[in-house]
């Protein structure tokens, strides 16, 4: 049984594709995250995808490794809890912190 994690892909009012994740991301479910991100990227065509991690309480290096190959097309939104980790791995330039 992998760690609990759910996804939802929606269009925000600006028309951007938003992948919202809720739960915790670690090596046991990084593959699910990867599949969800691939789906969202395909759906968005060439447009950037916003990955909303505000409801994610925990992400480790396996989860972050999913994001790196798509760094040019991904914008991250994260809570204050996750911000220090994302900053440490150098994702602060594609990240917005939301309380």
């Amino acid at each position, binding site marked *: *049984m*992998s*760690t*609990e994690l759910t996804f939802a892909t929606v269009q925000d009012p600006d028309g951007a594709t938003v992948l919202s994740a809720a739960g*915790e991301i*670690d*090596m*046991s479910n990084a593959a699910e995250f990867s599949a969800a991100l691939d789906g969202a990227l395909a759906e968005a065509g060439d447009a950037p995808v916003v990955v909303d991690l505000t409801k994610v309480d*925990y*992400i*480790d*290096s*396996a989860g*972050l*490794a999913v994001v*790196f*190959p798509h760094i040019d097309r991904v914008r991250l939104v994260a809570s204050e*809890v*996750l911000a*220090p*980790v994302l900053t*440490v*791995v150098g994702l602060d330039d594609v990240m917005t912190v939301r309380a």
Partner: protein
Amino acid sequence: MSNASAAEVFAGGGEVGHDLAAVEWESTPLGAPGQWPQSLRTAVSILLSSRFPMWMAWGPELTFFCNAAYRRDTLGRKYPWALGRPASEVWAEIWDDIGPRIETVLSTGQATWDEALLLFVERSGYPEESYHTFSYSPLRDDDGDLVGMLCVVSEVTERVIGERRMATLRDLGSDPSAIRTEQQMLTFAAAQLDRNRQDLPFTLIYLFTEGGVELAAATGAEQEEREWPTAAVTRGETQQIGQALLVPLLQQGGSPYGFMVAGLNEFRALDDGYRGFIELAAGHVAAGIASARSYEAQQRRAEELAELDRAKTAFFSNISHEFRTPLTLIMGPVEDLLDRGPDGQTRAELDVIQRNALRLGKLVNTLLDFSRIEAGRMQARYEPADLATATAELASVFQSAVERAGLTYKVDCPPLAQPVFLDRGMWEKIVLNLLSNALKFTFTGGISVTVRAEGDAAVVTVADTGAGVPEAEIPRLFERFHRIDNTQSRSNEGSGIGLALVKELVELHGGTITADSTLGEGTTFTIRLRFGAEHLPPDAIVPVGKAADWKAGAGPYVQEALRWLPGDENGDENGGENAVRTAPTKARLLVADDNADMRDYLTRLLRSAGHAVEAVGDGQAALEAARVHNPDLIVSDVMMPRLDGLQLVAALRADPRTAGTPVLLLSARAGQEASIEGLEAGADDYLVKPFSSAELLARVRANVELARLRNHHARWRTALIDSLQEAFFVCDEDGAVIEINSTFTDILGYGPEGLPYPPVHPWWPDQESDPDGYQQVAAAFALLVDKTHGSYTIPVSHRDGHVLWVAASFNQVRDPDSGRRVIVGTFRDVTAEHYAVQRESALAALSVRLTEADSLPGALSSVLRDLRDLWQATQVYAAVFTGDSTPAVTTTDGGPRWDELPGHQRQILASVRDEALLTPVAERTGGAGISLEHPNGTMALWVQLAENRPFTEQDQTLLALLAGRLGQGLHRIHQIDQQRETALALQRAILGPAQLPAGFAVRYSPATRPLKVGGDWYDTVALPDERIGIVVGDCVGHGLQAATVMGQLRSACRALLLQNTDPAQTLTALDRFAVQLPGAMCATVFCGVLDPVTGDLAYASAGHPPAVVTHPDGTLDLLDQGRSRPLGVHNPSGRPEAHYTVPSRATLLLYTDGLVERRRLPLTDGIGRVAVTVQQGRGASIEDLATEVMESMTPDGGYDDDVALLLYRQPGPLELDFPAESTRLAPVRSALRGWLARAGIDPTTAQNVLVAAGEACANAIEHGHRHGPAGRIRLIATATADYLRLTVTDSGRWKTPRPAENPHRGRGLTLMRALMTEVTVTTGAAGTVVGLQARIPQ
């Protein structure tokens, strides 16, 4: 609700629940479980869920229930039969004991309490002795009626039996110093064994004797006599025979001493513990036998040494002091008399005197020979000699004596081909003694002497046909002072020393002497001496002497022998010159004249008148002679060289000893003036030459008689003083000795001729070689000159150099004639007493050392220091030769190891080891050694003395005695060491919880060594709901008695806490217990119940010092609420309880007053100091902190009271162990998140820790997977005040991160490093450990 099924009622009861459900409840008075009242169901549920042993009874028949713990600990084979049965049936065999108690509970509603109650339960197929501490509490049904009871029980069988056995072993091992003999020891051991009849219903101790076995001791129930099989125990094996165990009494390095038959307790199984106990008890008995036998053997040896020493000392001191001086005084005058040619009768009498004096002299000389041999001072000079001729010449001396005795005499000494190396004087003594001996005991037949060569040796035999010696006496023939009684001999005189001397002298030649004898037929002595000189010390070999006269010392032997023979009229050997017959001696005169003719004339003239005359050539010689033997009259010329007559008179008058001696001056100078001058100078009379012989004789007679009248008093005084047994002396004001008596000369060797002896007196010890002795004498001398009277004991040096001790006392008196102050003193020789006292006090000091010491090395080094002080040694070495490794060296100053010792020192020690045990070896190089038995092997002891310091015979005796005692003492300490180890192992088993809950650290330090337990204790108890009971207590007193009380209080408190889980109630219940337990009154106890999740602590204190809490920021809280009086003391308002919440990362400290209490300081002072220590150490780990607290609080000289210490930090560490699978990451995070919250960590730090720990775990999972599915990961998290520390341990090896190859891998480590204060990765053969450390922001 009321229709629950049986399965539901017993749910959660595990196997017991399942079996309870299977009971046919419908056939019991309780009916179907579904119908049971709620109260019963609740009771059953509590029962089943408890992990503490419990059983309960409910309903009219007291139907029996129990839980799994009770089943395991107590019920045994009665399970599951007992379930649902009436309790009276289940426990039929002990119902007499427990029935009334249950009755009391049900009738009064009051709980009962029993401590360690003995119950014989049948759970293992036999009635088993068991002990239970239990409480019966009432159970009520839904209506509140008493319908049953719950029993919480703790089985304490192991503890009770363990303590009992320990007590027996302790008593056996106690060391009653009065025990000396084997029988005393066995009686003592039997008394101890008999006190434990439970474990040893009877014991029989058998010892192996030459013929079989012998019952040496028996205890307990009478046993019929029977033969026990001994094959197994003889081999050293234990054997069980029926209800008895046969245990060998093992002897170290030998076959068993015997065996012990131990009756077995029929109510206990013979398990390892029981068997071990019996074997240990037998071991104690065996050790006791070993000790007693060794003690007896060594005691005998020491007594023999002391006895020999006493005999010798007594004999030699008698001989030297009582015989030698008078002997000389007999011999001299007798020779003078014989010289004067007395007539027949007088001459015959003088001969008798002379022969006896010679005989005495010979005996004294023989004894002195012995003392020389013993002291190694016999200076042998071996020269190549013709043994046959030498022996024949010596034998010829006895020719006439043998013939006169009517015996045949055969001397058969053909020449030998080779010379034999002989010491002339010694050989003479050997042959003459043997011949003298033969003649003494032979009445018919004859004596023969032969010399032959046999192989590489010359054989000399002296055979007689005399009385012979009984066979039994032959072995003692050469023993010193041994005389064979009831043997016909020519004389009863004899010291029994001649043959012993012969043997010593033959052995000095490297030869042997044997005796063959048949009673009534005769005796043959056979001496074998090897040819050549190889067997003799090279430095004692001298070239052949000049014209050998082999009969130089034969005179006394032959004269003595002749006197044994009848018709003795032989006396012409000393053939006196023809002497003029003279009148009886009237006076002793001293003649001084420088003219030899005049001197001879005066001498002849005065002798003819019957006077004894001594003649000297000048005044000085006269003065010296007068001082030695004060004459009756001095006849002196006036004109003489060196000292003339007038000066002589003046000198005589100036000396108190000679002031009264009359002087008759002779002078060629006539006239009044000369005469007056002489008389004024103090002369008594004056005669002018030439004078007629008649005038001279008349003047002499007149002066002698006048002087006798005048000096009667003075002569009486002199005679009196000379007859004193004590030495007598007179000193002038300056301390110069001016008068002495003859005993003074006997003791010190300094005679009157040397008077006066000005200070420093010649008998003072040498300042260089004996500074201590010199100081003592100087101090005594100061006393003598300053005080009016006094006494002192000092070492002095005899004229011949040997040191002796004298006890002196003195008085100041005023000389009535001169009015001057003089000092009169006496002293006696106390050398023997002095050494006896020194010996006794050294032995006593040694015994004290051995008693005080608690380890072998400790005993040895303190004894070595004593030996050093005793002999003012520069160093004392002890080397124990264990046989298989390098000897263990101990010295007085810590000292070097064996391989660091100088080579010669190693050699000395090795040679000492090779000597016979307890035989001192002294060397001229300034040291002495001895070997003795150390428990680990032979020990060589070496006392290195300062240069010049002699090691006397007394010193050697003392060393032998001390070494003997030391050997015994070391063996005893060795045994006590072993016994203590055994006792400690047992003691440790009754102290402290086996396993502490996480987050706790404890320390314990008992005041009384060597015990490891005292009156203080700490305890932790796992309670339901994960709560933890914490107890720290302190019984009054310390030592074993307090420890016993402590053990019971601790057990009781533990059981009560399990029952109540409420500190105040627990203490209240403990009060009742304490009242009944002697020694438990006034014990103080802190009792708390901690919820480690929340940090909530409920606590109550019975007079115990307050607990201390240190917050992470250093704030201190004292838990001083919930206070009441110590245990057993009336508390009118009951015992209050207080609540406290231990903050996150705070440290809780509990302790007993021994930690903080100091004399003359308030308790609060100590509490303040320990609080500061904990405050400063709040960042350290809990274990390090515990060590730091114990060390920093240690008073100078160590703790003098028991100390118990318990530390807890909230929260306890988190310890997780999980399989290396990624699905476990989420639950691990959840657990860690919860723990971080309990530790009060802020969200950001917590998230950082979660990610870093997650990365470490993820890495570990990758490695864990690579090594198969069995890999496991262990995560441990601990908190201090300002740091978090985590370790993640796996069994794999980490990949080296290579970010360039795959930029997205290996990011985990980067993350950890970025988020944590410190990261360490340690990869070893067993796996990888990641250490994470994060500072907690304040």
